[in-house]
């Protein structure tokens, strides 16, 4: 997983885009699913409490106005007609009129002192005895009986305020209060007496336990809000029930909508992220592909076609400039190699003729000593020149990448032995002790190019012999599991530290007294190093200083 991000900027970018898209959406979704329902329900409860409050107030106002009406009616002069048994029906007509005005289920009665109903809003109760006598203990009052509310007020004679002449009673059916209780599809309101003996409005099918003066209960289908009423209806509770599925219909709908929509939104976020990150990475991919292509084909004349002014556009521009420069440099280098190669070939032909003829002169003509000297000089100089041309050709070949490599399994030890045997006579000529040590070499099989290996080894050994006047030369072969070491240690002239960097440059020879006496093209070490690089190997030189000897180390990797 970490690789997935570590190795691809595109993946990281894609991940960032997706998280940026997802996070707000998921937070929104969680908020909607978890938090908002509680908030909406709380809001609903608050609204219902408000409703209850309003309805409670309305009912209170209504009952108060009824109470006032009764007081008002009882104080009218016309009530004196009680004393004439309302023969003129003035009171009855007034009460009938009042009843009609209210258009509610209610009745007004006037009861005389001898407990007879002498005036009423409905004719059929007239002259009956009133059964409520004992309830009218005060001058005015309110009481409940059965499903009715009674409001009464004693009537005094207009000419003598101390004399009670009767009682005005309002019989009010509690069911009238139903008009104040909303009963819509969503809401259902009812009133209940504390002892649950009486209900106004539709009684619910379930039982509700009341705990406080005011509260709310959340049931499966309903949200119930209740409140205790005051004043006249102090024994009553008013309830508002809200059907959850209807009240929260919009909310549930919205949640469903969100849930159905979320897969599409998620897919959309992913698609947009992928598209966008691809769009951003397209030029980078193009650049990478072109680079890979150039590495394989080595054609530097290519051009990255990109039109944009952003950072990547600038990178592409720089890349194109780089390609252009490289192309030119490589062209120049190729031209140089071709020139050297051609020149060398052209030089070799006449040089071979010179060498051939001078050798012929040395062996077949009777030359004087002086002549022989001159001709020998011509021959050796030509040989030197030829050797140099070969060296140049080899370097040009390596640089042009035209060296043929044949990697085969070979025996390193016998190859080194061959080189050792070849150069042993040269060492003997100079009275140098020359040893070959291969005790630390354990590999039986080793893969390399025999020809190049031998060439490098011969080069290094002949250099060692060339630059050693007296003393010893030691060739040592050793290995580890990964590398093979060929060390050539001599007791020769050594190298100054400052001169070290020059060693592997073409045509450079260290300018000291001893070397100036030696013949050499100055190509040997440079050629060896380049050949070693062809084999994926390397050559190092170590020296403690002038006249302290040199150690050349040739390191080859073990190929599997």
């Amino acid at each position, binding site marked *: 997983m970490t690789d997935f991000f570590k190795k691809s900027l595109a993946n990281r970018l894609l991940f960032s885009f997706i998280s940026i898209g997802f996070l707000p959406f998921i937070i929104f979704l969680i908020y909607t699913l978890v938090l908002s329902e509680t908030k909406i329900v709380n809001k609903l409860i608050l609204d219902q409490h408000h409703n209850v409050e309003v309805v409670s107030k309305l009912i209170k106002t209504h009952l108060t106005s009824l109470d006032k009406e009764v007081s008002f009616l009882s104080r009218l002069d016309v009530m004196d007609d009680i*004393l*004439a048994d309302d023969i*003129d029906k003035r009171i009855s007509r007034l009460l009938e009129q009042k009843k009609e005005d209210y258009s509610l289920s209610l009745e007004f009665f006037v009861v005389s002192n001898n407990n007879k109903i002498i005036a009423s809003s409905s004719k059929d109760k007239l002259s009956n005895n009133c059964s409520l006598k004992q309830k009218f203990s005060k001058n005015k009052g309110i009481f409940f009986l059965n499903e009715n509310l009674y409001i009464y007020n004693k009537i005094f004679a*207009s*000419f003598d305020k101390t004399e009670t002449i009767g009682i005005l009673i309002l019989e009010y059916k509690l069911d009238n209060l139903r008009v104040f209780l909303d009963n819509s599809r969503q809401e259902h309101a009812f009133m209940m007496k504390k002892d649950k003996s009486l209900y106004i409005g539709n009684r619910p099918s379930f039982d509700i336990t009341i705990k406080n003066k005011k509260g709310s209960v959340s049931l499966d289908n309903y949200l119930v809000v209740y409140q205790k009423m005051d004043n006249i209806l102090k024994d009553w509770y008013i309830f508002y029930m809200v059907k959850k599925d209807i009240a929260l219909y919009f909310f549930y709908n919205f949640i469903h909508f969100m849930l159905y929509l979320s897969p599409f939104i998620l897919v959309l976020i992913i698609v947009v992220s992928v598209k966008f990150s691809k769009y951003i990475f397209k030029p980078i991919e193009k650049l990478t592909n072109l680079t890979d292509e150039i590495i394989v084909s080595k054609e530097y004349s290519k051009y990255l076609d990109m039109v944009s002014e952003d950072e990547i556009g600038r990178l592409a521009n720089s890349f194109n400039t780089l390609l252009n420069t490289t192309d030119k440099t490589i062209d120049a280098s190729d031209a140089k190699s071709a020139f050297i190669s051609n020149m060398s070939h052209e030089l070799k032909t006449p040089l071979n003729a010179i060498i051939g003829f001078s050798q012929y002169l040395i062996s077949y003509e009777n030359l004087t000593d002086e002549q022989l000297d001159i001709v020998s000089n011509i021959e050796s100089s030509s040989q030197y020149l030829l050797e140099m041309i070969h060296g140049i050709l080899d370097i040009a070949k390596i640089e042009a990448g035209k060296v043929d490599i044949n990697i085969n399994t070979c025996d390193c030890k016998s190859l080194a032995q061959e080189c050792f045997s070849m150069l042993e006579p040269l060492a003997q000529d100079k009275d140098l002790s020359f040893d070959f040590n291969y005790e630390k070499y354990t590999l039986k099989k080793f893969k390399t190019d025999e020809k190049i290996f031998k060439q490098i080894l011969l080069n290094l050994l002949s250099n060692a012999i060339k630059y050693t006047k007296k003393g010893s030369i030691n060739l040592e072969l050793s290995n580890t599991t990964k590398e093979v070491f060929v060390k050539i240690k001599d007791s020769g002239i050594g190298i100054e530290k400052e001169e070290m960097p020059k060693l592997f440059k073409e045509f450079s020879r260290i300018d000291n007294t001893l070397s100036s006496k030696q013949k050499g093209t100055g190509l040997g070490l440079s050629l060896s190093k380049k050949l070693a690089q062809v084999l994926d190997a390397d050559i190092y030189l170590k020296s403690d200083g002038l006249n302290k000897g040199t150690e050349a180390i040739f390191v080859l990797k073990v190929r599997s």
Partner: protein
Amino acid sequence: MKLGGVFFILFSLNIFAQEYAVVSNVLLHDITKSKLKAIFLKKLTHLNKIHLVPVNLSSNNDIREAFEKEILQMSKKRLKSYWSKQHYMGNRPPVTMKSQESVLAFTRNVLGAISYVKIENVNENVNILYKWRSND
């Protein structure tokens, strides 16, 4: 012929004149026109320690008009202004009943009630305190 003429006059008086009676549920003696006026203007409220309750008929009733003309001897306008002034002093005009029956019922039921009706409507439950005749 002469006698016939007198009879004719008497007869005709009998036909066109209407007799009224002031009634109460208590028997009060020496009720004069001026006493009645004082009672109905609520200047006199108690008699023989009885609280008097005068009862009027409704305002456009013929009997009331006859009563006001004969006993109170005040025009409607004057009466109106009188009761307006009394109203500010906290006095109210007498109780008003619509019909003679209710007047009689009220008078029978209320102690000290005093009212007026046509003489032919007087029943045994009330006492006649005063009578007058009108020729209208």
